Protein backbone atom coordinates (compact mmCIF):
# COMPACT_ATOMS: atom_id res chain seq x y z
CA UNK A 1 0.00 0.00 0.00
CA UNK A 2 1.37 3.37 -0.94
CA UNK A 3 0.52 6.15 1.45
CA UNK A 4 -2.60 8.02 0.35
CA UNK A 5 -1.15 11.47 0.79
CA UNK A 6 -4.22 13.69 0.85
CA UNK A 7 -4.05 17.38 1.49
CA UNK A 8 -6.34 18.12 4.42
CA UNK A 9 -7.10 21.81 4.18
CA UNK A 10 -7.65 24.09 7.15
CA UNK A 11 -11.45 23.97 7.10
CA UNK A 12 -11.51 20.16 7.01
CA UNK A 13 -8.99 19.95 9.82
CA UNK A 14 -10.88 22.46 11.95
CA UNK A 15 -14.17 20.70 11.26
CA UNK A 16 -12.84 17.34 12.45
CA UNK A 17 -11.18 18.91 15.48
CA UNK A 18 -14.41 20.71 16.42
CA UNK A 19 -16.29 17.44 16.02
CA UNK A 20 -13.90 15.77 18.46
CA UNK A 21 -14.14 18.59 21.00
CA UNK A 22 -17.90 19.06 20.86
CA UNK A 23 -18.48 15.32 21.02
CA UNK A 24 -16.16 15.07 23.97
CA UNK A 25 -17.65 18.02 25.76
CA UNK A 26 -21.18 16.71 25.59
CA UNK A 27 -20.16 13.24 26.77
CA UNK A 28 -18.13 14.66 29.65
CA UNK A 29 -19.90 14.65 33.04
CA UNK A 30 -17.90 17.72 34.16
CA UNK A 31 -19.60 19.97 31.61
CA UNK A 32 -23.05 19.01 32.88
CA UNK A 33 -21.89 19.56 36.45
CA UNK A 34 -20.55 23.01 35.53
CA UNK A 35 -23.79 23.91 33.73
CA UNK A 36 -25.80 22.61 36.69
CA UNK A 37 -23.72 24.67 39.09
CA UNK A 38 -24.21 27.73 36.87
CA UNK A 39 -27.97 27.29 37.09
CA UNK A 40 -28.10 26.40 40.79
CA UNK A 41 -25.59 28.95 42.06
CA UNK A 42 -27.74 32.11 41.63
CA UNK A 43 -30.81 30.32 42.98
CA UNK A 44 -28.90 29.30 46.09
CA UNK A 45 -27.27 32.71 46.53
CA UNK A 46 -30.49 34.70 46.10
CA UNK A 47 -32.72 32.41 48.15
CA UNK A 48 -30.22 31.91 50.98
CA UNK A 49 -29.27 35.57 51.31
CA UNK A 50 -32.96 36.53 51.40
CA UNK A 51 -33.30 34.35 54.53
CA UNK A 52 -30.49 36.29 56.21
CA UNK A 53 -32.84 39.26 56.46
CA UNK A 54 -30.05 41.72 55.92
CA UNK A 55 -28.39 41.10 59.29
CA UNK A 56 -25.78 38.69 60.57
CA UNK A 57 -24.01 38.16 63.88
CA UNK A 58 -20.28 38.66 63.93
CA UNK A 59 -18.93 35.44 65.52
CA UNK A 60 -15.98 37.25 67.09
CA UNK A 61 -17.74 40.22 68.65
CA UNK A 62 -21.25 38.82 68.97
CA UNK A 63 -22.58 42.10 67.62
CA UNK A 64 -25.37 42.09 65.07
CA UNK A 65 -24.21 43.69 61.82
CA UNK A 66 -26.13 44.80 58.76
CA UNK A 67 -25.24 42.98 55.55
CA UNK A 68 -25.93 44.48 52.15
CA UNK A 69 -28.00 41.66 50.65
CA UNK A 70 -29.83 41.39 47.36
CA UNK A 71 -32.95 43.50 47.08
CA UNK A 72 -33.20 43.43 43.32
CA UNK A 73 -32.72 40.46 41.02
CA UNK A 74 -30.49 42.42 38.60
CA UNK A 75 -27.88 42.79 41.32
CA UNK A 76 -27.08 39.16 40.64
CA UNK A 77 -26.02 40.17 37.14
CA UNK A 78 -23.98 43.25 37.96
CA UNK A 79 -23.95 46.75 39.35
CA UNK A 80 -24.54 50.01 37.58
CA UNK A 81 -21.76 52.53 37.41
CA UNK A 82 -18.94 50.08 36.96
CA UNK A 83 -17.09 50.39 40.26
CA UNK A 84 -16.69 47.20 42.27
CA UNK A 85 -17.75 47.58 45.89
CA UNK A 86 -16.53 45.04 48.43
CA UNK A 87 -19.99 43.83 49.42
CA UNK A 88 -21.95 40.63 49.02
CA UNK A 89 -23.85 41.72 45.91
CA UNK A 90 -20.66 42.66 44.08
CA UNK A 91 -18.70 39.58 45.07
CA UNK A 92 -21.41 36.93 44.65
CA UNK A 93 -22.80 37.76 41.24
CA UNK A 94 -22.48 36.42 37.71
CA UNK A 95 -18.79 37.37 37.65
CA UNK A 96 -18.05 34.25 39.72
CA UNK A 97 -18.68 32.32 36.51
CA UNK A 98 -15.41 33.56 35.04
CA UNK A 99 -13.57 31.50 37.65
CA UNK A 100 -15.82 28.52 37.08
CA UNK A 101 -15.26 28.78 33.31
CA UNK A 102 -11.48 29.02 33.82
CA UNK A 103 -11.48 25.89 35.99
CA UNK A 104 -13.52 24.07 33.36
CA UNK A 105 -11.05 25.07 30.63
CA UNK A 106 -8.17 23.70 32.72
CA UNK A 107 -10.01 20.43 33.35
CA UNK A 108 -11.01 20.04 29.72
CA UNK A 109 -7.58 20.74 28.26
CA UNK A 110 -5.59 19.15 31.10
CA UNK A 111 -7.39 15.84 30.58
CA UNK A 112 -6.08 15.69 27.00
CA UNK A 113 -2.54 15.71 28.35
CA UNK A 114 -3.13 13.63 31.48
CA UNK A 115 -4.81 10.82 29.56
CA UNK A 116 -2.22 10.88 26.79
CA UNK A 117 -4.95 11.57 24.23
CA UNK A 118 -2.72 14.29 22.75
CA UNK A 119 -0.61 11.48 21.30
CA UNK A 120 -3.53 10.51 19.08
CA UNK A 121 -4.37 14.10 18.26
CA UNK A 122 -0.97 15.44 17.42
CA UNK A 123 0.41 12.40 15.64
CA UNK A 124 -2.08 13.02 12.84
CA UNK A 125 -2.12 16.80 13.18
CA UNK A 126 0.99 18.83 12.62
CA UNK A 127 -0.85 22.16 12.87
CA UNK A 128 -1.40 22.98 16.52
CA UNK A 129 -3.50 25.98 15.57
CA UNK A 130 -6.46 23.66 14.83
CA UNK A 131 -6.31 22.48 18.41
CA UNK A 132 -6.08 25.96 19.94
CA UNK A 133 -8.82 27.39 17.74
CA UNK A 134 -11.17 24.48 18.28
CA UNK A 135 -10.66 24.52 22.05
CA UNK A 136 -11.28 28.28 22.18
CA UNK A 137 -14.52 27.97 20.21
CA UNK A 138 -15.83 24.95 22.12
CA UNK A 139 -14.96 26.34 25.53
CA UNK A 140 -16.44 29.71 24.62
CA UNK A 141 -19.68 27.93 23.70
CA UNK A 142 -19.59 26.20 27.10
CA UNK A 143 -19.00 29.56 28.80
CA UNK A 144 -21.95 31.09 26.91
CA UNK A 145 -24.10 28.19 28.14
CA UNK A 146 -22.95 28.85 31.70
CA UNK A 147 -23.77 32.56 31.49
CA UNK A 148 -27.20 31.91 29.98
CA UNK A 149 -27.99 29.35 32.68
CA UNK A 150 -26.80 31.69 35.41
CA UNK A 151 -29.12 34.36 34.01
CA UNK A 152 -32.04 31.90 34.00
CA UNK A 153 -31.09 30.76 37.52
CA UNK A 154 -31.02 34.38 38.71
CA UNK A 155 -34.53 34.93 37.38
CA UNK A 156 -35.78 31.76 39.07
CA UNK A 157 -33.94 32.53 42.32
CA UNK A 158 -35.18 36.11 42.31
CA UNK A 159 -38.72 34.88 41.81
CA UNK A 160 -38.45 32.40 44.68
CA UNK A 161 -36.82 34.94 46.99
CA UNK A 162 -39.43 37.53 46.07
CA UNK A 163 -36.89 40.11 44.91
CA UNK A 164 -37.75 43.14 42.84
CA UNK A 165 -37.38 42.90 39.06
CA UNK A 166 -37.46 46.68 38.65
CA UNK A 167 -34.71 47.62 36.23
CA UNK A 168 -34.81 51.33 36.96
CA UNK A 169 -34.30 50.70 40.69
CA UNK A 170 -30.72 49.59 40.01
CA UNK A 171 -30.04 52.49 37.66
CA UNK A 172 -30.18 50.47 34.46
CA UNK A 173 -32.41 49.95 31.46
CA UNK A 174 -33.56 46.73 29.77
CA UNK A 175 -31.31 47.54 26.83
CA UNK A 176 -28.42 48.17 29.19
CA UNK A 177 -28.88 44.75 30.78
CA UNK A 178 -28.93 43.07 27.38
CA UNK A 179 -25.75 44.96 26.46
CA UNK A 180 -24.26 43.98 29.83
CA UNK A 181 -24.95 40.29 29.22
CA UNK A 182 -23.47 40.44 25.68
CA UNK A 183 -20.40 42.21 27.04
CA UNK A 184 -20.00 39.68 29.87
CA UNK A 185 -20.32 36.74 27.52
CA UNK A 186 -17.63 38.07 25.16
CA UNK A 187 -15.43 39.07 28.08
CA UNK A 188 -15.44 35.36 28.95
CA UNK A 189 -13.16 34.87 25.94
CA UNK A 190 -10.44 36.66 27.91
CA UNK A 191 -10.69 34.15 30.75
CA UNK A 192 -11.05 31.20 28.38
CA UNK A 193 -7.91 32.13 26.46
CA UNK A 194 -5.88 32.83 29.61
CA UNK A 195 -6.89 29.49 31.10
CA UNK A 196 -6.26 27.74 27.78
CA UNK A 197 -2.74 29.15 27.56
CA UNK A 198 -2.01 28.21 31.17
CA UNK A 199 -3.44 24.72 30.59
CA UNK A 200 -1.14 24.32 27.58
CA UNK A 201 1.80 25.50 29.69
CA UNK A 202 0.86 23.25 32.60
CA UNK A 203 0.00 20.21 30.44
CA UNK A 204 -0.28 17.22 32.82
CA UNK A 205 0.14 19.50 35.85
CA UNK A 206 -3.51 20.39 36.28
CA UNK A 207 -2.91 22.07 39.65
CA UNK A 208 -0.52 24.52 38.02
CA UNK A 209 -2.97 25.61 35.34
CA UNK A 210 -5.89 25.89 37.79
CA UNK A 211 -3.88 27.92 40.29
CA UNK A 212 -2.48 30.10 37.52
CA UNK A 213 -5.93 30.71 36.08
CA UNK A 214 -7.39 31.61 39.45
CA UNK A 215 -4.51 33.98 40.15
CA UNK A 216 -4.91 35.64 36.75
CA UNK A 217 -8.66 35.80 37.35
CA UNK A 218 -8.13 37.58 40.67
CA UNK A 219 -6.04 40.21 38.89
CA UNK A 220 -8.74 40.76 36.29
CA UNK A 221 -11.69 40.52 38.68
CA UNK A 222 -11.81 44.23 39.44
CA UNK A 223 -11.81 45.03 35.73
CA UNK A 224 -15.01 43.10 35.01
CA UNK A 225 -17.51 45.58 36.60
CA UNK A 226 -15.80 48.44 34.78
CA UNK A 227 -15.94 46.69 31.43
CA UNK A 228 -19.41 45.23 31.83
CA UNK A 229 -21.59 47.39 34.09
CA UNK A 230 -25.31 46.72 34.41
CA UNK A 231 -26.03 49.88 32.45
CA UNK A 232 -23.69 48.96 29.61
CA UNK A 233 -23.85 50.90 26.40
CA UNK A 234 -22.71 50.39 22.84
CA UNK A 235 -19.15 51.25 23.85
CA UNK A 236 -18.99 48.36 26.35
CA UNK A 237 -20.45 45.96 23.80
CA UNK A 238 -18.02 46.99 21.07
CA UNK A 239 -15.11 46.87 23.51
CA UNK A 240 -15.92 43.33 24.64
CA UNK A 241 -17.16 41.95 21.31
CA UNK A 242 -13.98 43.12 19.60
CA UNK A 243 -11.57 42.99 22.52
CA UNK A 244 -12.49 39.48 23.70
CA UNK A 245 -11.81 37.77 20.35
CA UNK A 246 -8.71 39.90 19.76
CA UNK A 247 -7.34 38.93 23.15
CA UNK A 248 -8.17 35.28 22.37
CA UNK A 249 -6.37 35.52 19.02
CA UNK A 250 -3.29 36.97 20.71
CA UNK A 251 -3.13 34.39 23.46
CA UNK A 252 -4.11 31.67 20.97
CA UNK A 253 -0.98 32.53 19.01
CA UNK A 254 1.05 32.20 22.22
CA UNK A 255 -0.55 28.80 22.94
CA UNK A 256 0.22 27.72 19.39
CA UNK A 257 3.89 28.64 19.79
CA UNK A 258 4.07 26.81 23.14
CA UNK A 259 2.58 23.66 21.60
CA UNK A 260 4.96 23.87 18.66
CA UNK A 261 8.07 24.41 20.74
CA UNK A 262 7.55 22.12 23.71
CA UNK A 263 7.22 18.38 24.25
CA UNK A 264 3.62 17.20 24.14
CA UNK A 265 4.08 14.01 26.14
Amino acid sequence: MNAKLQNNNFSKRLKTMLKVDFRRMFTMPTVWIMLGVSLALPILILVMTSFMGGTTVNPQTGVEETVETFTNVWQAIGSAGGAMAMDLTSMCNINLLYFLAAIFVCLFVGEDFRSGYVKNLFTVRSKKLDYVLSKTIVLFVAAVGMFVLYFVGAMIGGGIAGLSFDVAAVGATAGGIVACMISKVFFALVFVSIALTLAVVGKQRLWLSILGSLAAGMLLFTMIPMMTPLNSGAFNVVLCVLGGPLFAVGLGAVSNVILNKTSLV
Partner: protein
Amino acid sequence: MNAIEIRNLTKTFGEKRAVDGLNMTVPQGAIYGFIGENGSGKSTTEKLICGLIQPSGGEIKLWGKDYRDQTVRSQIGVLIEAPGCYPNYSVWNNMKLQAANLGIENEDQEIRRVLHLVRMDGAASNKFKNCSLGMKQRIGIAFALLGNPALLVLDEPINGLDADGMRIMREMLTNLSRRGTTVLISSHILGELEKIATHYGIIRGGKMLREMTAEELNANCPTFVALKTDDMQKARAILERAFGRVEYDEDHGELRVFGKTTAEDVAKYLFENFGIAVSEIRTAKINLEEYYIDLMQEGR
Protein backbone atom coordinates in the same frame (compact mmCIF):
# COMPACT_ATOMS: atom_id res chain seq x y z
CA MET B 1 10.38 4.37 -1.62
CA ASN B 2 11.35 4.48 2.03
CA ALA B 3 8.57 5.11 4.49
CA ILE B 4 10.95 6.61 7.06
CA GLU B 5 14.33 8.18 6.48
CA ILE B 6 16.17 9.73 9.37
CA ARG B 7 19.47 11.56 9.06
CA ASN B 8 21.62 12.83 11.93
CA LEU B 9 18.68 13.06 14.28
CA THR B 10 19.53 14.56 17.65
CA LYS B 11 17.43 15.16 20.73
CA THR B 12 18.82 16.56 23.93
CA PHE B 13 17.10 16.90 27.27
CA GLY B 14 19.24 19.41 29.15
CA GLU B 15 22.71 17.89 29.22
CA LYS B 16 21.57 14.42 28.18
CA ARG B 17 21.65 13.37 24.54
CA ALA B 18 18.76 10.93 24.23
CA VAL B 19 19.20 10.62 20.47
CA ASP B 20 22.67 11.30 19.13
CA GLY B 21 23.08 11.64 15.38
CA LEU B 22 20.77 8.75 14.56
CA ASN B 23 20.48 7.49 10.99
CA MET B 24 17.67 5.11 10.13
CA THR B 25 15.95 3.84 7.00
CA VAL B 26 12.67 1.96 7.05
CA PRO B 27 11.57 0.71 3.63
CA GLN B 28 7.92 0.83 2.61
CA GLY B 29 6.09 -2.32 3.67
CA ALA B 30 8.77 -3.43 6.15
CA ILE B 31 8.19 -4.68 9.67
CA TYR B 32 11.09 -2.89 11.28
CA GLY B 33 12.12 -4.30 14.63
CA PHE B 34 13.60 -1.43 16.62
CA ILE B 35 15.74 -2.88 19.37
CA GLY B 36 17.75 -1.38 22.18
CA GLU B 37 18.31 -1.34 25.91
CA ASN B 38 16.14 0.68 28.27
CA GLY B 39 17.01 4.35 27.80
CA SER B 40 18.74 3.76 24.48
CA GLY B 41 16.49 6.28 22.70
CA LYS B 42 13.86 4.05 21.05
CA SER B 43 10.78 5.73 22.48
CA THR B 44 12.29 9.18 22.02
CA THR B 45 12.94 8.41 18.35
CA GLU B 46 9.38 7.18 17.93
CA LYS B 47 7.99 10.29 19.61
CA LEU B 48 10.13 12.41 17.30
CA ILE B 49 8.81 10.60 14.24
CA CYS B 50 5.25 11.22 15.44
CA GLY B 51 5.94 14.90 16.10
CA LEU B 52 5.20 14.61 19.80
CA ILE B 53 8.54 16.12 20.75
CA GLN B 54 10.73 18.49 18.79
CA PRO B 55 14.15 17.39 17.52
CA SER B 56 17.26 19.34 18.51
CA GLY B 57 18.76 18.65 15.08
CA GLY B 58 18.67 16.42 12.04
CA GLU B 59 16.05 15.45 9.53
CA ILE B 60 13.06 13.12 9.50
CA LYS B 61 11.37 12.30 6.22
CA LEU B 62 8.24 10.24 5.77
CA TRP B 63 7.69 9.04 2.21
CA GLY B 64 10.23 11.63 1.13
CA LYS B 65 8.40 14.55 2.75
CA ASP B 66 9.23 16.45 5.90
CA TYR B 67 7.63 14.73 8.90
CA ARG B 68 5.73 17.91 9.80
CA ASP B 69 3.89 17.88 6.48
CA GLN B 70 0.17 17.45 7.20
CA THR B 71 -0.32 15.09 4.26
CA VAL B 72 2.02 12.48 5.69
CA ARG B 73 0.97 12.90 9.30
CA SER B 74 -2.57 11.76 8.62
CA GLN B 75 -1.12 8.39 7.53
CA ILE B 76 0.36 7.42 10.90
CA GLY B 77 -1.18 5.12 13.49
CA VAL B 78 0.52 5.19 16.85
CA LEU B 79 0.81 3.30 20.09
CA ILE B 80 3.55 4.82 22.23
CA GLU B 81 3.84 3.71 25.84
CA ALA B 82 0.23 3.48 27.12
CA PRO B 83 -2.76 3.99 24.81
CA GLY B 84 -3.96 7.59 24.83
CA CYS B 85 -7.55 7.14 25.98
CA TYR B 86 -9.78 9.08 28.37
CA PRO B 87 -10.06 6.76 31.39
CA ASN B 88 -13.67 7.62 32.24
CA TYR B 89 -14.96 7.13 28.71
CA SER B 90 -16.05 3.81 27.29
CA VAL B 91 -13.80 2.12 24.76
CA TRP B 92 -16.43 2.85 22.11
CA ASN B 93 -16.63 6.58 22.92
CA ASN B 94 -12.85 6.85 22.95
CA MET B 95 -12.73 5.27 19.52
CA LYS B 96 -15.53 7.49 18.25
CA LEU B 97 -13.45 10.51 19.22
CA GLN B 98 -10.42 9.21 17.39
CA ALA B 99 -12.53 8.31 14.37
CA ALA B 100 -13.80 11.90 14.32
CA ASN B 101 -10.24 13.14 14.70
CA LEU B 102 -9.23 11.14 11.64
CA GLY B 103 -12.27 12.29 9.67
CA ILE B 104 -13.46 8.72 9.07
CA GLU B 105 -16.83 8.62 7.36
CA ASN B 106 -18.26 5.23 8.36
CA GLU B 107 -17.15 5.56 11.96
CA ASP B 108 -19.17 2.74 13.53
CA GLN B 109 -18.25 0.24 10.83
CA GLU B 110 -14.55 1.12 11.06
CA ILE B 111 -14.54 0.89 14.86
CA ARG B 112 -16.20 -2.53 14.74
CA ARG B 113 -13.63 -3.66 12.16
CA VAL B 114 -10.58 -2.71 14.22
CA LEU B 115 -12.06 -3.99 17.48
CA HIS B 116 -12.72 -7.30 15.75
CA LEU B 117 -9.14 -7.41 14.45
CA VAL B 118 -7.81 -7.33 18.02
CA ARG B 119 -10.67 -9.56 19.32
CA MET B 120 -12.05 -6.83 21.54
CA ASP B 121 -15.57 -6.77 20.09
CA GLY B 122 -17.07 -7.47 23.49
CA ALA B 123 -15.19 -4.73 25.32
CA ALA B 124 -16.64 -1.74 23.47
CA SER B 125 -18.97 -0.70 26.27
CA ASN B 126 -16.36 -1.09 29.04
CA LYS B 127 -14.95 2.01 30.64
CA PHE B 128 -11.33 2.25 29.54
CA LYS B 129 -10.06 2.56 33.11
CA ASN B 130 -11.74 -0.76 34.00
CA CYS B 131 -9.94 -2.71 31.26
CA SER B 132 -7.04 -5.02 32.16
CA LEU B 133 -3.48 -4.27 31.01
CA GLY B 134 -3.72 -6.75 28.14
CA MET B 135 -7.11 -5.37 27.05
CA LYS B 136 -5.77 -1.82 27.14
CA GLN B 137 -2.86 -2.88 24.98
CA ARG B 138 -5.17 -4.49 22.42
CA ILE B 139 -7.40 -1.41 22.44
CA GLY B 140 -4.31 0.74 21.90
CA ILE B 141 -3.46 -1.35 18.86
CA ALA B 142 -7.03 -0.99 17.59
CA PHE B 143 -6.67 2.78 18.02
CA ALA B 144 -3.51 2.73 15.93
CA LEU B 145 -5.25 0.73 13.20
CA LEU B 146 -8.21 3.10 12.83
CA GLY B 147 -8.44 4.50 9.33
CA ASN B 148 -5.96 2.02 7.81
CA PRO B 149 -2.77 4.04 8.32
CA ALA B 150 0.14 3.45 5.96
CA LEU B 151 2.64 3.61 8.84
CA LEU B 152 2.22 2.06 12.26
CA VAL B 153 4.50 3.16 15.07
CA LEU B 154 4.19 0.68 17.92
CA ASP B 155 6.19 1.02 21.11
CA GLU B 156 6.23 -2.20 23.14
CA PRO B 157 2.84 -3.31 21.78
CA ILE B 158 3.11 -6.88 23.01
CA ASN B 159 3.74 -6.00 26.64
CA GLY B 160 0.95 -7.46 28.72
CA LEU B 161 -0.49 -9.55 25.90
CA ASP B 162 -1.31 -13.19 26.54
CA ALA B 163 -0.17 -15.97 24.19
CA ASP B 164 -3.30 -15.64 22.07
CA GLY B 165 -2.90 -11.87 21.94
CA MET B 166 0.68 -12.26 20.73
CA ARG B 167 -0.42 -14.70 18.03
CA ILE B 168 -3.19 -12.36 16.86
CA MET B 169 -0.73 -9.49 16.84
CA ARG B 170 1.80 -11.48 14.78
CA GLU B 171 -0.77 -12.53 12.21
CA MET B 172 -2.24 -9.07 11.96
CA LEU B 173 1.08 -7.29 11.49
CA THR B 174 2.25 -9.83 8.94
CA ASN B 175 -0.99 -9.39 6.96
CA LEU B 176 -0.72 -5.62 7.13
CA SER B 177 2.87 -5.75 5.95
CA ARG B 178 1.87 -7.95 3.01
CA ARG B 179 -0.62 -5.28 2.00
CA GLY B 180 2.12 -2.64 2.10
CA THR B 181 1.67 -1.11 5.54
CA THR B 182 4.97 -0.18 7.14
CA VAL B 183 5.37 -1.16 10.77
CA LEU B 184 7.96 0.30 13.13
CA ILE B 185 7.85 -1.83 16.24
CA SER B 186 10.01 -1.74 19.32
CA SER B 187 10.00 -4.55 21.81
CA HIS B 188 12.16 -6.28 24.38
CA ILE B 189 10.49 -9.60 23.58
CA LEU B 190 12.96 -10.43 20.85
CA GLY B 191 11.69 -13.97 20.30
CA GLU B 192 8.34 -12.56 19.17
CA LEU B 193 9.95 -9.86 17.10
CA GLU B 194 12.13 -12.38 15.29
CA LYS B 195 9.02 -14.19 14.06
CA ILE B 196 7.70 -11.21 12.13
CA ALA B 197 10.40 -8.60 11.50
CA THR B 198 11.74 -8.12 8.00
CA HIS B 199 14.25 -5.48 9.03
CA TYR B 200 16.08 -4.62 12.24
CA GLY B 201 17.63 -1.55 13.73
CA ILE B 202 19.70 -1.85 16.88
CA ILE B 203 20.20 1.35 18.82
CA ARG B 204 22.51 2.12 21.71
CA GLY B 205 23.16 5.42 23.47
CA GLY B 206 20.97 7.21 20.93
CA LYS B 207 23.09 5.99 17.99
CA MET B 208 22.19 3.37 15.42
CA LEU B 209 24.53 0.48 16.10
CA ARG B 210 23.44 -1.74 13.24
CA GLU B 211 20.70 -1.86 10.62
CA MET B 212 20.03 -5.01 8.65
CA THR B 213 17.41 -7.12 6.94
CA ALA B 214 16.18 -10.40 8.39
CA GLU B 215 18.29 -12.20 5.74
CA GLU B 216 21.40 -10.31 6.80
CA LEU B 217 20.71 -11.15 10.42
CA ASN B 218 20.37 -14.78 9.45
CA ALA B 219 23.69 -14.66 7.66
CA ASN B 220 25.32 -12.92 10.65
CA CYS B 221 24.05 -15.47 13.14
CA PRO B 222 26.59 -18.32 13.33
CA THR B 223 25.62 -21.96 13.64
CA PHE B 224 27.06 -24.02 16.47
CA VAL B 225 27.11 -27.52 17.85
CA ALA B 226 25.56 -27.74 21.33
CA LEU B 227 26.44 -30.71 23.49
CA LYS B 228 26.29 -32.13 27.00
CA THR B 229 28.74 -34.52 28.60
CA ASP B 230 29.44 -35.75 32.13
CA ASP B 231 32.63 -33.70 32.37
CA MET B 232 31.90 -30.36 30.78
CA GLN B 233 35.05 -28.66 32.05
CA LYS B 234 37.38 -31.24 30.53
CA ALA B 235 35.39 -31.39 27.30
CA ARG B 236 35.52 -27.61 27.01
CA ALA B 237 39.31 -27.51 27.36
CA ILE B 238 39.73 -30.24 24.74
CA LEU B 239 37.28 -28.69 22.29
CA GLU B 240 38.82 -25.24 22.64
CA ARG B 241 42.20 -26.64 21.60
CA ALA B 242 40.66 -28.43 18.63
CA PHE B 243 37.94 -26.11 17.38
CA GLY B 244 38.75 -22.66 18.74
CA ARG B 245 35.65 -20.83 19.96
CA VAL B 246 33.76 -22.80 22.61
CA GLU B 247 31.30 -21.25 25.05
CA TYR B 248 29.40 -22.57 28.01
CA ASP B 249 25.72 -21.62 27.95
CA GLU B 250 24.51 -21.45 31.51
CA ASP B 251 20.84 -21.18 30.57
CA HIS B 252 20.83 -24.49 28.76
CA GLY B 253 23.76 -26.10 30.62
CA GLU B 254 25.51 -26.96 27.37
CA LEU B 255 28.78 -26.37 25.56
CA ARG B 256 28.59 -24.54 22.26
CA VAL B 257 31.22 -25.22 19.63
CA PHE B 258 31.34 -22.54 16.93
CA GLY B 259 32.97 -22.82 13.54
CA LYS B 260 32.66 -25.04 10.49
CA THR B 261 32.05 -28.39 12.08
CA THR B 262 29.26 -30.92 12.44
CA ALA B 263 27.70 -32.61 15.46
CA GLU B 264 29.01 -35.92 14.24
CA ASP B 265 32.62 -34.68 13.97
CA VAL B 266 32.56 -33.21 17.46
CA ALA B 267 31.05 -36.31 19.09
CA LYS B 268 33.47 -38.58 17.24
CA TYR B 269 36.49 -36.45 18.17
CA LEU B 270 35.64 -36.48 21.88
CA PHE B 271 34.85 -40.16 22.09
CA GLU B 272 37.59 -41.59 19.85
CA ASN B 273 40.45 -39.43 21.17
CA PHE B 274 39.49 -38.93 24.81
CA GLY B 275 36.79 -41.49 25.59
CA ILE B 276 34.30 -38.78 26.51
CA ALA B 277 30.74 -39.79 25.72
CA VAL B 278 28.26 -37.15 24.63
CA SER B 279 24.81 -37.45 26.22
CA GLU B 280 23.05 -34.85 24.05
CA ILE B 281 24.14 -33.13 20.86
CA ARG B 282 22.44 -30.91 18.28
CA THR B 283 23.22 -28.29 15.67
CA ALA B 284 21.61 -24.90 16.22
CA LYS B 285 21.83 -21.28 15.23
CA ILE B 286 22.24 -18.10 17.27
CA ASN B 287 18.87 -16.35 17.51
CA LEU B 288 18.11 -12.64 17.55
CA GLU B 289 18.22 -12.43 21.32
CA GLU B 290 21.64 -14.06 21.52
CA TYR B 291 22.92 -12.01 18.61
CA TYR B 292 21.70 -8.86 20.31
CA ILE B 293 23.26 -9.76 23.66
CA ASP B 294 26.58 -10.56 21.97
CA LEU B 295 26.47 -7.27 20.12
CA MET B 296 25.76 -5.35 23.31
CA GLN B 297 28.59 -7.12 25.13
CA GLU B 298 31.03 -6.43 22.29
CA GLY B 299 30.58 -2.70 22.76
CA ARG B 300 31.25 -2.74 26.50
